[in-house]
């Protein structure tokens, strides 16, 4: 209980900008009091592990009110005000749970935007949402931490191994099947259509014999004027498009695009939804 009051006090102070981020070491901001002290401690440990292993910040924020901001906006503001993130690009994630609107958002920053593309955010969110819907906030957060750790590891493998096939690519491959089926059906329909049309056409052999030239007399073509006069010329120049291939990774793509939004002059990614 004591922790809760400290949490609320912290948030209040932060929002009013009286005291700039004094809990710098803590990464669990349970302002809506959804976690027990033990759970908070566990999450703090997980966050520190990820920090050490992957140079990736991971913070948790729960709240009952987002002060009129959208949940992700609120998370981004909090992230900046707490000066979260590692390195020059403030790499890290903050997981915001707003009990007021029953919405949660994973907000990413820096390298995390590259790693947690829309595709992976969706995969993770699908898992985490299950926990949140059941009221198991701690479970959801631990799951998120596991996923963050896992994908940071996978991303590292992707960078090191040019032949690495990401989960995203595998998924794309699986998706090829229905697309292929669709194309095959279309091709087959077209072939059948053309085939039947040819068969129908073969039933109609009425084609004109000549455009008239067949009845031209042997020496019946006389030219009075036969000129090909050069009229004009012009030359156009078109620049050859430069082929700047910035994709240094030959093996394939990591995970598709990441959609971003900006807040306070910085760029954030991520995603989430209602639970």
């Amino acid at each position: 209980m004591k922790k809760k009051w400290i949490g609320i006090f912290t948030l209040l102070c932060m929002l009013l900008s009286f005291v700039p981020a004094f809990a710098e070491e803590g990464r669990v901001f349970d302002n809506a009091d959804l976690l027990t002290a033990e759970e908070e401690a566990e999450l703090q440990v997980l966050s520190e592990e990820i920090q050490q292993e992957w140079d990736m910040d991971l913070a948790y924020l729960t709240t009952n009110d987002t002060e009129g901001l959208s949940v992700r906006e609120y998370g981004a503001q909090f992230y900046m005000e707490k000066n979260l993130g590692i390195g020059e690009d403030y790499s890290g994630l903050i997981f915001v749970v707003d009990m007021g609107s029953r919405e949660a958002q994973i907000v990413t920053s820096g390298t995390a935007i590259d790693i947690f593309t829309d595709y992976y955010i969706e995969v993770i969110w699908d898992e985490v949402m299950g926990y949140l819907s059941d009221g198991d906030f701690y479970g959801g957060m631990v799951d998120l931490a596991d996923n963050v750790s896992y994908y940071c590891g996978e991303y590292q493998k992707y960078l090191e191994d040019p032949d690495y096939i990401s989960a995203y690519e595998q998924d794309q491959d699986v998706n090829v099947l229905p697309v292929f089926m669709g194309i095959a059906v279309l091709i087959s329909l077209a072939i059948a259509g053309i085939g039947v049309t040819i068969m129908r056409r073969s039933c109609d052999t009425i084609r004109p014999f000549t455009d008239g030239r067949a009845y031209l007399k042997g020496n019946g073509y006389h030219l009075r004027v036969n000129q090909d006069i050069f009229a004009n010329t012009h030359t156009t120049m078109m620049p050859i498009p430069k082929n700047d291939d910035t994709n240094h990774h030959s093996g394939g793509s990591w995970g598709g695009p990441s959609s971003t939004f900006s807040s306070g002059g910085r760029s954030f990614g991520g995603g989430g939804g209602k639970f």
Partner: protein
Amino acid sequence: MENTALTYLCPNCMAYLRFDGKEGNWVCDYCDGKFTMEELEQRGAKIKEDDYQILPRDQAEEDTTDVSYHYEENIPQGEEDMSHIRAYTCPSCGGEILTDDVTSATFCVFCGNPTVLPTQFAGKYRPTAILPFETDKKDAQKAFLNLCRGKKLLPKGYTSEQRLEKITGVYVPFWVFDCKADFDYHATGENVTTWSDARYIYTKTDLYHIHRAGDLEFENIPLDASEKMRDDLMDALEPFRLDQAKPFDMSYLSGFLAEKYTYEPKDLYDRMTKRITPGVENKVAEGGRAYQRVYGVKCHTDFSSDRQVYMLLPVWMLISKYEGKDYLFAMNGQTGKIVGELPVSGSQTAKWFFIIFLIAFLITGIIAFALGI
């Protein structure tokens, strides 16, 4: 480039000259010649006479073909006595059938109606020539069966004995025209060359004014004079070797039917003009310099015809009704060339569509599997 400023032709190379307003000279883009007004006049440079405009492809005007014609009716008359001719009309379709007094018509070859009524023969023109049949009914029946062979979409039982019996030899009336076409043809010819260096792709477009004028003489253009016969079908039956035509004689009609003309030459001038106009343009475009593209064709042709011959040409024909529509099979009675339209069964079409679809789907599946998709 302002095309309307191109008024003179280069005295060196005959290309169009462009007026360079800065220098006050006439410039040839082709041979790099430069001329003042005085020089041009001294050298007797030709002035562009026609109003044809050379324009780039996207600004070019649509192709236009305009045609005029004048005909002089000159129909050699046959001298055959027509008293031995027997005429019938069909009460159903109004078709007029002729034959000699030993042959009798028992059904209408044009619509299949089983009764035809004898009438009095009347007509302004007598046929001058006839092209006798060189094939017999057996050939025609065989040809019909050949045409039907392998046609999967044909309704079942279409090639019955009964139908084969109805194949009839008919002398179809034709007007055979001689004609002269006087043409004046303008077009723009375009040649494009493309090359590139490290930084740019260059596209050079040369435009030429193609001008051809002259005349074309056509002879023996057959046009069927029967309203009952489909024009496209009769056109498709060609060619007939008209040099083997004989002066008309009643005896050729024995065992065959003939149709009386419904069109006089004056009714067919327009159709003849339409038939050979594409030939005129294609013939003109054939020769001369080669271009990658020719567009902006403006062709005026003046047709004149001074001879039309009434001739009977041999055709084996069979009209079948299927689902309310007439289908015509015809064979050139001289050369054996077959044309025709066979009925198509809807259920057979659906069946074959499905079969081909399945096979194609299977094959695409196997290919995909082989490629490891």
